[in-house]
């Protein structure tokens, strides 16, 4: 009779392991969302010179718990004209891919759900499945705001998926593997990937902000313009699952990808001696990026939808393609050293950062000229 880990029959162990993994991921997602909502409020309050939550518990720490209890105990409202099963299925369709992507996140050396050899592809795939849930939610709500919001949101997610994936490709070209563990292992020591590939990191970070609906790309749930877009008809825990849990879960997943691919994952001082220290380093790095995202939210205004789309299709995607070509050619030409790739990537980043204002100013001038030309005959006719 075969014996698995801990002396448990493998036939029992395999499903048991699944249950434990899902339970652990759920626990982390729920608590992560609570913690991140609290962090978000506090950080925005500090930046905007307010106090933030401080009534419930010490430093307002229990405020989000109270809010979660309120959400759970809310009446389950469903408008009569909504589309039955689809309306119920949409939150699950948004939530499940996010939960499933926690399987391949490497928290530490051996603390990973499954070491897939195509882990990165798996994460991209699950990220692309969220769109389906959002479109279904918009459709099932039977509400024009929700429908328009859902379609806009799907358009944004599909568009920004492209630069996101293209940025990942350059990392795979340098590392030569899609496994999250191998990518982390390849960055032993202080020379993490961000020093080699800063440009693809910047592209990925911008695209990830759009993918997770964070400001300045939070049009899908723009409360002030689209009455929260595709979430219009949702309330209570359905809303909580879709917005709070899925959004903050996705933010965590994206930050974990950034940490693993560009910042050395769990690696840090003292990890070789105490492997469990990796969890601490990983969490610290991930939360560092989450705080940066919150900082951006408190700083930048929201983009308009046409600016969002033109920035993606005319800015990010061409630059990501150039980045891939450059990295691939240099990786083939200099298989032993990463220094030429690093130089090229830093140069590309400088060109990108310097080029945006120039291009933007020229575009604005052209737009203004066109607007003037369009209004001139009308003004002449009126006078």
């Amino acid at each position, binding site marked *: *009779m075969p014996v698995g880990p801990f002396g448990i029959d493998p036939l029992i162990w395999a499903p048991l392991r699944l249950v434990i993994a899902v339970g652990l991921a759920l626990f982390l997602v729920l608590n992560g969302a609570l913690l991140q909502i609290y962090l978000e409020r506090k950080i925005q309050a500090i930046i905007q010179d307010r106090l933030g939550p401080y009534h419930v518990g010490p430093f307002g720490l229990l405020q989000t718990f109270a809010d979660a209890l309120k959400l759970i105990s809310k009446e389950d409202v469903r408008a009569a004209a909504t589309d039955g099963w*689809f309306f119920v299925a949409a939150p699950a369709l948004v939530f499940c891919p996010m939960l499933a992507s926690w399987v391949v996140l490497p928290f530490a050396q051996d603390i990973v759900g499954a070491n897939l050899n*195509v882990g990165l*592809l798996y994460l991209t795939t699950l990220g692309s*499945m969220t769109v389906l849930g959002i479109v279904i939610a918009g459709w099932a709500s039977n509400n024009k705001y929700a429908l328009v919001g859902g379609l806009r949101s799907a358009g944004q997610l599909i568009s920004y998926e492209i630069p996101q994936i293209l940025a990942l490709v350059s990392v795979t070209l340098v590392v030569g593997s899609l496994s999250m563990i191998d990518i982390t292992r390849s960055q032993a020591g202080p020379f993490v990937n961000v020093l080699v590939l800063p440009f693809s990191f910047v592209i990925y970070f911008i695209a990830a902000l759009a993918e997770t609906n964070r400001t300045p790309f939070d049009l899908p749930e723009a409360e002030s313009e689209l009455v929260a877009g595709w979430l219009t008809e949702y309330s209570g825990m359905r809303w909580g699952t879709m917005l709070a849990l899925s959004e903050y879960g996705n933010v965590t997943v994206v930050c974990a990808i950034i940490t693993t691919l560009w910042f050395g994952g769990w690696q840090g001082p003292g990890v070789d001696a105490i492997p469990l220290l990796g969890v601490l380093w990983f969490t610290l790095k991930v939360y560092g990026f989450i705080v940066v995202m919150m900082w951006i939210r408190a700083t930048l205004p929201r983009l308009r939808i046409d600016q969002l789309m033109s920035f993606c299709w005319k800015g990010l995607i061409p630059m990501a393609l150039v980045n891939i070509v450059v990295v691939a050619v240099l990786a083939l030409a200099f298989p032993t050293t990463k220094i030429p790739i690093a130089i090229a990537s830093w140069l590309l980043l400088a060109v990108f950062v310097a080029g945006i204002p120039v291009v933007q100013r020229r575009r604005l001038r052209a737009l203004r000229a066109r607007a003037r030309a369009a209004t001139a005959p009308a003004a002449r006719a009126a006078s």
Partner: protein
Amino acid sequence: MTYDFVEPVVFALLSIGLIAGGVAVVMLSRITAAALLMAFTFLSMAGMFVLLGAETIALFQVLIYVGAITVLILYGVMFTKFSDRPRALFFQRQTPFAAVFVAAVAIPVAIIALSFTSPTPRPGGGDLIPLATSVFTDFAFPFEIASVLLLAAMIGAIVLTKRDEPEEAAARRRR
């Protein structure tokens, strides 16, 4: 006691999901439900690929068919009014033709499937590096042909749907 029975059970579940989903896609008259069930069918198919050890193919299946194509179909559904005309007026008169076509496809497939003896399994057949190598060496020509075809379709779609600039349209009206 061995655990060889797990794989056939998973296979059976996936096949039931695949066939039932496919049948439901064809039979249902609610088109959004059909689209969602199609996504389910694609997911079951991906499960089949995983069972065959081809994780990469499975992931691309989900990435392209669930993440992109189903969403596109839903987009198409949402921008079309499906209540204007009586449904299925055209297709329901085609039963004899349909039977002939189904027989023409199904009988060879059944014959091949029943006479099929599986080749010796090659471990790592779905692995990424051999897959990429074969795509870019042995199958480079078909790959490029497919790319050119897709590019042509994309440009065609843009040309067909592109609206004139508002000023140009106004200028043409004035003429």
